[in-house]
């Protein structure tokens, strides 16, 4: 059953500048994680996406991007599933 999800994760991880990725359900339980994304952060990531959805609840869930000097964390919700991608910012 997880094969499809693993395939998507592999695909994301093979993209340049990606450090890690994580998929969690609406309860904040981790479904899959790879690379620098830690299983324990699933709860926080879902909480952030839920908080962002409260801004405009009538619109479809937004993409949240958290940026540091060198890294980015992109969080997107789709139905009950929340995905997060940890990226290295390229200097190009």
């Amino acid at each position, binding site marked *: 059953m997880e094969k499809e999800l693993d395939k998507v994760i592999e695909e994301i991880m093979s993209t340049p500048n990606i450090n890690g990725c994580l998929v969690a359900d609406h309860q904040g339980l981790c479904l899959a994680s790879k690379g*620098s994304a830690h299983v324990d952060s699933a709860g926080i990531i879902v909480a952030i996406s839920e908080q962002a959805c409260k*801004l405009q609840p009538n619109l479809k869930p937004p*993409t949240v991007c958290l940026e*540091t000097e060198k890294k980015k964390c992109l969080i997107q919700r789709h139905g009950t599933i929340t995905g997060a991608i940890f990226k290295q910012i390229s200097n190009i």
Partner: protein
Amino acid sequence: MDKIPDQIGYLVLTEDGAVLESGGELENDERVATIITDLIALSNKVDPLAFGPNEQFKKISITYDDHWFAICLSNKKIYVVKRNIQQTGSESNAIIV
């Protein structure tokens, strides 16, 4: 803040979420102010492994289809700007064609 291109609303908040300045669509929007301060509190706890303890977030953006919110912290104040997303020329042409 009024000079920011494509700006449709802005908020300047204290660290605890009190509104100092506001304008446009976000004028006196206490609801958005509370949601954003809670969001910042949450983002402080994100993955200590992926982001080291010295790596503080410098910017948060929340993107919808046609507008986005940019959130930055500076001088112990939280700056929030709601901005329109301009459709690119090629896309709008495609719709017309």
